[in-house]
């Protein structure tokens, strides 16, 4: 080092007066580094004139050490991975120094890095190519420690054969070495060395027989032989993947029933030999098995297991004997209206069918009717099973028979199964009469974990249970399993699907008699509902609205609904209310009047939530009408009989039919309709909107006077300032008022008045206003114009016919019908924005005795025609 520095000094003698040692060091991050600056060939300066800079920053003189008058050292911590310059400078202590500044500075670059870490987990593998082991050996290892950009760590893989060495360098954590041939039966030593400018370190050495690194192909040509005489056995043959001289192998075999992923492994002690065939035993007859074989170096602890061979599939021969009995069960459904039950008998094949089931025999014996020969006969139910049927590990469920069984009757059912060889033992089941209830199990509890449903229950008291049947049903599919009488907890063994609601029942069986089941519903796993609840109705108020929604259909819930959250939004502010899962309506309160809200409902399960469509509504500008009972009658009369005619005194009635019945289902207008001039009187001021009037062409004194002309008052909420507009704002004697308005009211009831609506319904000829001296209503004169006026609303609110009281259209006046249609329309209209006319329609308040179903109905439709009708006035 010193020599090199001196050489450098000599070479730079003519140029530099400062020299740093060491030159271009590679430093380990985390250590301290000391450099020394020496003054050469000058007396102009001394060590006290020197200072150090690390990049642009002057190093504190606390880190300096004066070696002698011409040498100054500095010690700095090595931090950061980025290389840096370390400079030795001299203060400008003289003119000479100032003029020869470049000679009084020297810098070295500090390259930083980490010492290499010892590579770990070295493993090497040579795979089979064609009929030999590849001469390329591949090794992987785990890098340890960090590496900087300036001091990268490289790795050299060494493979040492007897007499030959190979190596290969890489930056990564794996490498390959190509040997001339794969050195079977030769010792081999492999290791990897990590190295960089700061040092080198070797991994542990793998010193093994070369064959320890071999991974062969799996055995090929696997043949499975089924021999008729051995129904519980299959013979497997295969070909060694590689010649014995290269490698002696040991084998492993696994098998499973077709369709099952549950492999059974043949114990290694049985196959741990250099074999080419093996006989699987104790298999089930007439069952399709899938078999796989793999192999490795026979020497224990040496080599890698090959991949598993491709599937070899074979069905075991049919057995000679059918053991066990069918698993008979029933599904009982109550028949509505009659005292009968519908009983369906289903069965599973015997566990050890030992062959393909060809038919079942069933006998249903009525307990009270034993002697009847018919019931004693065995009924033959053939079963057509395909080859593939038996390949599944799940037992087949066969529908046998369906009967209608009177509630008071009980039957005993017997079933046997047949394969090609013989008959199974008899299975029997008793269906007791309905009144004969045997005790159910108690405390049935169900939990879900690990993708399975776990049940536990307590045995019924005072009853000796012979066994339990655990039944689970979903989407019309039923399955069951039997548990012995000592069982009180089990897991459902069937393939259960996620997000499906299963009804799990435990039936105690008392010597063949099935007891009352205990049932619970459960999901294996819950998810978010597929859709949100549907908002089906709303009841608007000024400061509140009641939302009614429908439950999500069962198949779309995908979990138990834990709660509903109602969100409503006015502008950008969103509020929410959480209600229990058993709620299907809720009244939102503290809303602002005459304000548009967007609402939606979110249904939650533990797996997530789903929201409904957006539902927009406007709160009413005015509150609900509240009529006193006292005026109810007069109101009704007025409503039904008082025509909205500008000046009834100038009119004469050409025809009058006092016998014309007043229709009970006259349009049930309400104060909110705001469209009937008559209504205005019976409602308080809140029921009429400023906008309404503003928007109406009838915003005239006349209109207003007409509005109040009926004189039928008595509304408990008649305190609106609007009332003062009227110049005939008398409370009015109810009787008088009613009397004075009879004719007009009857006109209205005759539907002639309503006929002004653009309903295009033919006018009833019962009443006529043709003799009236007052100008005809616009609709009377220009029905087309009326239609035009109302067309917009007719299209948007085609529920108008509901209010057309014609004999021909009686059906349409049915409130329910109307409501239904209205709802349909409403759904269509949901996305539409409300505009003033719609506001009218929205702000409908039900009158007393009026079906709430009518609520959103009439307004616009009944309003618009009348507007049109009145306009010419």
């Amino acid at each position, binding site marked *: 080092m010193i020599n090199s520095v001196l050489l450098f000094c000599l070479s730079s003698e003519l140029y530099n007066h400062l020299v740093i040692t060491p030159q271009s060091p590679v430093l380990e991050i985390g250590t301290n580094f000391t450099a020394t600056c020496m003054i050469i060939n000058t007396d102009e300066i001394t060590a006290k004139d020197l200072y150090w800079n690390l990049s642009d920053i002057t190093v504190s003189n606390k880190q300096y050490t004066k070696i002698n008058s011409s040498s100054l050292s500095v010690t700095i911590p090595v931090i950061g991975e980025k290389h840096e310059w370390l400079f030795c400078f001299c203060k400008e202590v003289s003119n000479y120094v100032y003029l020869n500044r470049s000679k009084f500075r020297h810098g070295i670059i500090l390259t930083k890095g980490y010492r290499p870490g010892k590579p770990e987990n070295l493993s090497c593998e040579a795979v089979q190519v064609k009929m030999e082991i590849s001469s390329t050996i591949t090794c992987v290892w785990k890098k340890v420690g960090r590496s900087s950009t300036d001091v990268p760590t490289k790795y050299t893989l060494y493979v040492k054969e007897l007499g030959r060495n190979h190596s290969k360098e890489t930056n990564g954590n794996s490498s390959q070495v190509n040997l001339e041939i794969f050195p*079977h*039966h030769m010792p081999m030593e492999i290791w990897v060395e990590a190295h960089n400018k700061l040092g080198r370190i070797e991994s542990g050495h793998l010193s093994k027989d070369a064959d320890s690194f071999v991974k062969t192909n799996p055995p090929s040509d696997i043949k499975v032989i089924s021999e008729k005489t051995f129904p519980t056995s299959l013979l497997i043959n295969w070909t060694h993947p590689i010649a014995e*001289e290269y490698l002696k192998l040991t084998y492993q075999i696994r098998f499973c029933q077709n369709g099952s992923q549950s492999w059974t492994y043949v114990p290694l002690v049985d196959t741990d030999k250099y074999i080419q065939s093996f006989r699987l035993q104790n298999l089930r007859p007439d069952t399709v098995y899938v078999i796989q074989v793999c192999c490795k170096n026979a020497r224990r602890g040496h080599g890698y297991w090959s991949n598993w061979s491709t599937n070899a599939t074979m069905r075991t021969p049919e057995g000679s004997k059918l053991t066990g009995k069918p698993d008979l069960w029933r599904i009982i459904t109550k028949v509505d209206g009659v005292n009968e039950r519908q009983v369906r008998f289903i069965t599973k094949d015997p566990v050890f069918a030992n062959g393909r089931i060809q038919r079942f025999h069933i006998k249903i014996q009525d307990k009270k009717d034993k002697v009847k020969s018919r019931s004693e006969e065995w009924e033959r139910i053939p079963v057509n099973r395909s080859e593939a049927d038996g390949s599944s590990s799940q037992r087949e469920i066969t529908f046998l028979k369906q009967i209608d069984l009177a509630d008071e009757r009980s039957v005993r059912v017997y079933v046997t199964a047949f394969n090609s060889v013989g008959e199974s033992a008899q299975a029997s089941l008793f269906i007791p009469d309905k009144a004969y209830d045997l005790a159910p199990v108690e405390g049935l509890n169900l939990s879900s974990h690990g993708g399975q449903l776990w049940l536990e229950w307590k045995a019924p008291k005072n009853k000796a249970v012979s066994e339990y049947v655990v039944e689970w049903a979903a989407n019309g599919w039923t399955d069951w399993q039997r548990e012995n009488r000592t069982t009180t907890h089990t897991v459902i063994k069937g393939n259960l699907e996620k997000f499906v609601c299963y009804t799990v029942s435990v039936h105690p069986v008392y010597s063949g008699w099935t007891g009352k089941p205990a049932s619970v519903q459960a999901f294996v796993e819950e998810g978010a509902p597929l859709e949100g609840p549907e908002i089906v109705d709303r009841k608007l108020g000024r400061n509140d609205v009641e939302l009614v929604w429908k439950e999500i259909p069962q198949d779309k819930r995908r979990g138990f609904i834990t709660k509903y959250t109602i969100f409503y939004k006015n502008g950008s502010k969103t509020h929410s209310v959480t209600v229990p899962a058993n709620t299907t309506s809720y009244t939102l309160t503290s809303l602002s009047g005459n304000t548009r809200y967007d609402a939606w409902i979110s249904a939650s399960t533990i797996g997530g939530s789903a929201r409904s469509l957006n539902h927009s509504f406007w709160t009413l500008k005015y509150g609900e009408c509240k009529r006193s009972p006292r005026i109810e009658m007069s109101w009704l009369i007025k409503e039904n009989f008082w025509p909205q005619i500008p000046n009834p005194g100038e009119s004469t009635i050409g025809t009058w039919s006092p016998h014309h019945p007043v229709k009970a289902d006259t349009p049930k207008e309400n104060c909110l309709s705001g469209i009937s001039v008559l209504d205005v009187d019976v409602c308080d001021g809140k029921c009429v909107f400023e906008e309404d009037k503003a928007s109406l062409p009838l915003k005239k004194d006349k209109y207003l006077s007409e509005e109040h002309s009926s004189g039928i008052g008595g509304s408990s909420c008649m305190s609106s300032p609007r009332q003062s507009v009227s110049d005939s704002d008398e409370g009015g004697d109810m009787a008088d008022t009613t009397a004075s308005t009879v004719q007009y009211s009857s006109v209205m009831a005759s539907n002639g008045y309503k006929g002004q609506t653009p309903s295009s319904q033919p006018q009833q000829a019962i009443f006529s206003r043709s003799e009236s001296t007052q100008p005809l209503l616009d609709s009377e004169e220009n029905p087309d114009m009326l239609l035009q006026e109302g067309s917009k609303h007719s299209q948007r609110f085609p529920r108008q016919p509901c209010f057309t009281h014609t004999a021909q259209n009686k059906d349409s006046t049915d409130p329910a019908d109307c409501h239904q249609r209205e709802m349909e329309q409403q759904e269509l209209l949901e996305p539409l924005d409300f505009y003033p006319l719609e506001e009218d329609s929205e702000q409908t308040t039900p009158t007393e005795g009026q079906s709430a179903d009518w609520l959103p109905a009439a307004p616009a439709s009944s309003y618009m025609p009348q507007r049109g009708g009145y306009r010419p006035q």
Partner: protein
Amino acid sequence: MCGFCLLKKFEKQCDYDESSQFACDTERRMNGHVKSMHFQQLMETAAALLSLLLVMAVDSTRTVAASRNQECGNSLQQTLKLTRLVQKESVDLIKTYKASQGEMAELFCKVTVADVPDPNISGLEPSERLASISIHLQAFFPHFKRVYEQQTDLQSPTSPLLAELTTVSTRSKNLATLINSFYQSLFPNLPVPEPAGGPTTLPPPQNVFQQKVYGCVVLKTYKELLANVSRELRTLKNKVCRRRIQINTLFL
């Protein structure tokens, strides 16, 4: 510990152990007969201890010998496996060789050719026979090289024959290395076997027919050598690796 030392120790104990002072005094009062009895007992104990040490030493030797024997057996087993592999590959090679020489290939191999190494293993002692195996194997290397060169001219570069020739040649070198290693582990004080008569004599330049015949004879002879090696190694297994146990047993 020797019996004498034990006696000394006992006397020392009488001098310093106060608790046993009375017993010691009593014994001192007894006559020389008593003393001689003590000496006799101590001598018996010493003899027993000596026997135990001997047994332990012998057992240890036996364990080491068994370990060595296992090592020997493993090495020989590996050598034998490799021999069988080369044997198999040489059989395959001859088939490939015959298949690639055109017509009359069978006849080529029936001709006798000079200058091909003798496939027979010589020597009386296991060391000599092992050395002979090594020397014979090494003697074939130049012949393989010559055959490879000749066949390179006769075959296409992608011919499987050339690849198989390379494989057998390399594998033979591995076998020779393994045998040398085994030889050195068994007879560390003997020189590494090398052909005694200097470099192997190769045949003079040959025509194509002669080359084909020569190649086949080399391979066939080599196959014979391998059969002999295989047989020899099986024999040596009993002689070399088990004899040490016998020696140890005799020692006992």
